[in-house]
C-alpha cells in the first residue's frame, strides 16, 4: 500500500502554547484512519493545518499528499486536491434544499445562470451513493441530524473527495444513524476514498478503523495497527491519558460538613427536539465545604444539567427535586434560584456572564441590585465600595472599577463573573468551566478562590473538561455521559484512566 497523506514534523504554536509538537501522521491509500485524544490534545488543530485553515507558513513541517508536497493557503486549496473536512457542527444552510446545499459555492451553472435540471440530476446520483432516500428538493431543516451528515458526505463526494475527514460524526446521532454512517465509510473505502475519523467512541473505532493514531498534549503518542495486532480499548485509553499531576493546584484542607445541596431524579429535554432527553434522571448531592467535580466529554449534558437547575435556563419538560439543607426549594426561575442561594457561573462568560459594554462597577452588583439600593434608589457610594471591595479581594487587574469589562483579559473577566455571584451571597455555587481560556497563573488564583469558598462552608460544583483540573481541586467526582450520571468516586480513588474508560466503554454501549 502507498500513503495518500503524510504529515511530517508538524509543529504549530499559539502565543504561549505549543498546540502541536512535531506531530507525524500517515494515512494509507484506501484506509480508515482513526485519530483519538482528549479534549485539547490537538486533533482539531492538526486537521486545521491539513485543510489549510492555518495556511502554509503558520506552522512548521511538511505535508505530502499523493506523493507531492502541498502548501495549502486556504480551505479552497485543500478541497481542490480532494481533502474535505466535515465538522462536528454541520455547515449546512437549513432553509435551502439538499441540492442547493450540495452545490453551494460550486453551482452547476453556465454564465452565472443555474442549470437546475443538471443540479437535481447530479444530486440524485450523489444521494444514491450515500443511500439517502430523499428528494433533492427537500429542505435540510426537515432532515434529522443523521441524514444531514449524509448530505454533508454527498457534498464532499460532489467535489471528488479523495480524503474525507470526519470530526466526531456520530456524537449527536442515535445508534441506527451512527451505524449507517459507519457502513457508508466502509463502503466508500471500497471505492477508494480514504478517511480520517475523529471520535471518542472507541467501540466504533475498533469496528471500522484500520489504524489508530493517538495524540496527547499536542504530540503523537503512538500509531496502532488494528490488522497486525488485537487492540483493546484499554490500550487506547492508556495512551490517551497518563500524564502526571504537577503542583498546579493550591493545597487544600477539606472540612466537609452536612449535605447541603441535593438533586433528585432530575430530567430535562431538548427545548426544540422535545423527544430528545438531554438530562436523564440525575441524582447527586454536595456537602457543605465540599468541592464536587462533574467529569464528562463535551456534549455529555453537564452544562445543560446546570442550566436547567438554575431557574430552568435550559430545556423543556424539566422534572425532579432540588433540596437545600434537607428542604425542597423552588428553582423555577433564575430569580428564585438566586434567592434560594444557588448560583451558576457560565462557561461562556462573554455571551452569558458579562454585560461587556459596562464597567466592573456595573457588572458586579447585577445579580444582587437590592444590595446596593435603598428601596429602588441606587446608593452610589455603596455600589462603588462593593465594586472596590471585590476588585481588591479578587485582585482584578484593571485601571479601576470604571474600566469596561470588554477590555479585561479572560482571567480578569472570570474574576468579575465570580465577584458578581459571590456578591449575590450563594450557598451553592455551580462553576461551569471556570478556567476555560485563561492562563496558568490566573487559573491558580481561581482555584484559590474556590478553596476559600469551600473553607467558608459553601457547596461547590465544578464542571470541567480538563480532567487534571477536576482531579486537582475536587473532593469527589461524578462522571456524566450522554445525559446520565454513570459513576461517582472520591478523588483519592479517581484517575484519568478510570474516568476515561468509564466514559468510553459506557458511551460505546449506550450509543
Amino acid at each position, binding site marked *: 500500500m502507498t500513503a495518500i497523506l503524510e504529515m511530517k514534523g508538524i509543529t504549530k504554536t499559539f502565543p504561549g502554547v505549543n498546540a502541536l509538537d512535531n506531530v507525524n501522521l500517515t494515512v494509507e491509500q484506501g484506509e480508515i484512519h482513526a485519530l483519538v485524544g482528549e479534549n485539547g490534545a490537538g486533533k482539531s488543530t492538526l486537521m486545521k493545518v491539513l485543510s489549510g485553515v492555518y495556511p502554509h507558513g503558520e506552522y512548521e513541517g511538511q505535508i505530502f499528499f499523493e506523493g507531492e508536497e502541498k502548501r495549502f493557503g486556504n480551505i479552497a486549496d485543500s478541497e481542490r486536491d480532494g481533502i474535505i473536512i466535515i465538522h462536528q457542527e454541520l455547515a449546512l444552510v437549513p432553509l435551502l434544499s439538499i441540492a442547493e446545499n450540495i452545490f453551494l459555492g460550486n453551482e452547476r451553472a453556465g454564465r452565472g445562470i443555474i442549470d437546475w435540471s443538471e443540479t437535481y440530476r447530479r444530486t440524485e446520483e450523489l444521494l444514491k451513493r450515500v443511500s439517502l432516500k430523499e428528494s433533492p428538493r427537500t429542505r435540510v431543516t426537515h432532515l434529522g441530524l443523521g441524514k444531514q451528515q449524509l448530505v454533508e458526505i454527498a457534498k464532499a463526494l460532489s467535489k471528488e473527495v479523495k480524503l474525507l475527514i470526519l470530526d466526531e460524526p456520530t456524537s449527536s446521532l442515535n445508534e441506527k444513524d451512527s451505524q449507517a454512517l459507519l457502513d457508508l465509510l466502509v463502503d466508500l473505502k471500497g471505492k477508494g476514498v480514504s478517511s480520517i475519523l475523529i471520535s471518542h467512541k472507541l467501540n466504533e473505532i475498533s469496528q471500522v478503523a484500520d489504524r489508530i493514531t493517538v495524540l496527547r498534549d499536542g504530540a503523537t503518542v503512538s500509531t496502532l495497527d488494528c490488522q497486525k495486532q488485537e487492540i483493546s480499548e484499554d490500550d487506547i485509553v492508556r495512551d490517551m491519558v497518563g500524564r502526571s499531576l504537577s503542583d498546579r493546584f493550591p493545597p487544600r484542607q477539606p472540612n466537609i460538613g452536612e449535605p447541603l445541596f441535593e438533586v433528585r431524579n432530575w430530567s430535562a429535554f431538548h427545548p426544540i427536539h422535545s423527544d430528545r432527553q438531554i438530562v436523564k434522571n440525575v441524582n447527586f448531592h454536595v456537602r457543605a465545604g465540599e468541592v464536587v467535580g462533574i467529569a464528562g466529554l463535551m456534549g455529555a449534558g453537564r452544562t445543560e444539567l446546570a442550566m436547567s437547575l438554575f*431557574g430552568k435556563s435550559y430545556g423543556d419538560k424539566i422534572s425532579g427535586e432540588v433540596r437545600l439543607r434537607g428542604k425542597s426549594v423552588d428553582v423555577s*426561575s*433564575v430569580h428564585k434560584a438566586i434567592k434560594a442561594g444557588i448560583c451558576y457561573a457560565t462557561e461562556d462568560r462573554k*455571551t452569558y*456572564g458579562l454585560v461587556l*459594554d459596562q464597567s466592573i462597577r456595573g457588572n458586579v452588583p*447585577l445579580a444582587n*441590585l437590592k444590595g446596593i439600593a435603598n428601596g429602588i434608589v*441606587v446608593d452610589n457610594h455603596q455600589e462603588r465600595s462593593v465594586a472596590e471591595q471585590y476588585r481588591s479581594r479578587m485582585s482584578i487587574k484593571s485601571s479601576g472599577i470604571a474600566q469596561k469589562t470588554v477590555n479585561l483579559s479572560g482571567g480578569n473577566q472570570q474574576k468579575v463573573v465570580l465577584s458578581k455571584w459571590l456578591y449575590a451571597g450563594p450557598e451553592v455555587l455551580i462553576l461551569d468551566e471556570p478556567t476555560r481560556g485563561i492562563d496558568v497563573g490566573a487559573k491558580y488564583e481561581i482555584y484559590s478562590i474556590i478553596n476559600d469558598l469551600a473553607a467558608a462552608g459553601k457547596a461547590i460544583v465544578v464542571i470541567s473538561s480538563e480532567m487534571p483540573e477536576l482531579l486537582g481541586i475536587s473532593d469527589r467526582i461524578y462522571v456524566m455521559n450522554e445525559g446520565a450520571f454513570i459513576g461517582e468516586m472520591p478523588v483519592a480513588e479517581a484517575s484519568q484512566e478510570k474516568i476515561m474508560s468509564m466514559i468510553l466503554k459506557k458511551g460505546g454501549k449506550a450509543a
Partner: protein
Amino acid sequence: MTDIPAQKAETERPPALQFLRTHMREYGILFALIAIMVFFQFSTEGILLRPVNLTNLVLQNSYIVIMAVGMLMVIVCGHIDLSVGSVMGFVGALSAVLMVNFGIHYIPAAIICLIVGAAIGAIQGYWIAYWKIPSFIVTLAGMLVFKGSMMVLLKGQSVGPFPNEFRAISSGFIPDFFAGESLHITSLLLGVAVATLLVFLSIRARQKEQKHGVPEEPFFFFVGRNILVAAAIVYLTYLLATARGLPNVFIVMAILIAGYSFIAKQTTIGRRIYAVGGNQKAAKLSGINAERLTFLVFANMGMLAALAGLVFAARLNMATPKAGETFELDVIAAVFIGGASMAGGVGTVVGAVVGAFIMGVMNNGMSIMGIGIDWQQMIKGLVLLAAVIFDVYNKNKAA
C-alpha cells in the same frame, strides 16, 4: 496578556485629557449644541435667542422631547418603536373626540387618553417581550394600525377647537405671583432656584465622592461644568422671563427629564434596563426579568406618546388626520444623535433631550434663514449620519 501595556499607557496620560477622552461623547454633544446655537445666533442676526423665538423653540419641540425620553428607554433596552408618531396622532384625535364631540371635561378626558396610550404601548410590548416578535415589525404594524384608526376617529376631518383650559397645557405660561412689569419674576426666580439646587446637589455629590476616594472628574471640569450649566439655565430663563415667562409645557418637560434621568441612572429598574439592553442573556442569567422590563418600557413609551399627542393637539387647537406623521423619525434621530447605541445598553436621557434640541435648533434656525425644507431635510440627515459616525469612530479608537 497583550492589553496590559495599553492600560499602562492610559494611566500615564494626564488625568484631565484621559477624562475628556472617555467622556468625549457626553461633552461632545453638549458642545455641538452650543456651537450650533452660536452659529445660528450669528447667521440669523440674533433672532434665534430672542425671547419670543426661544419660547417658540421650546413649544415647537416639547412633544419631540417628551417622546425622546420614552424612546431613549426603548432603545437602551435594545428595541425600537416606530409607532409613536401614529399613537401620538391617534391619542390627539381621541382627545378631540372626547372633549369636542362628547363634551367631556378635559381632566378625565386627558386621563383616559394617557391610559389608552399606555394600553397601546402595553399591547405592542406584550408581543415584543413575551412572543419575541421583533419590535421593528410589531411597531411598524402599530404605526399603520393607529394611523388608520386616527382617520376613522376623525372621519378624515379636523376636529376642534379645544376648551381654553386644555389649550393652556401647551400654550399657557406659569402665573407670575410678583406681577413684574417687564420681567416675569416667578420664572426668573424658578430658574435661579433650579440652578442653585443643581449646583448644590453636584457639590454634595462631589464631597461624598471625595470622602470615599478620588473623584473621577478633574476639579477644573467640575467647576467649569457647573458654572456653564448654572449660567445657561439662568440666562435662558431670564430670556424667557423677558417675554411671557416659562411655558407650562416647559415645566412638564423639566419634570419628565429630571424624573426619567433619575430612574435611568439612580434606580435598580434603570440598571436592569441598561443590563438587558447590554446583554440580555447575561441579564436573564443574573435573575433579571427581561420580559417584564421590556413590556413596561413599551407601556411607558405609549403613555409618553399619548402625552405628546395631548400637547400637540392642544398646541394646534385641533386634531388633524396628519398629526404625528414622521414624528417617529425625528424622535429616533434625536435619541441616536444623543449618543444612544442601536445595539442597546448605551445612552442617556439628557443626551436624547440635547439631541432633540439640536434637531429643533437646526429646524428653527434654518427656517429663520429662509433655507428651503428640501435643504433642511438633507442637512438634518447628514447631521444624524455624522453624529453616529463620530460615535463609531470614538468607540473604535477606544478599543
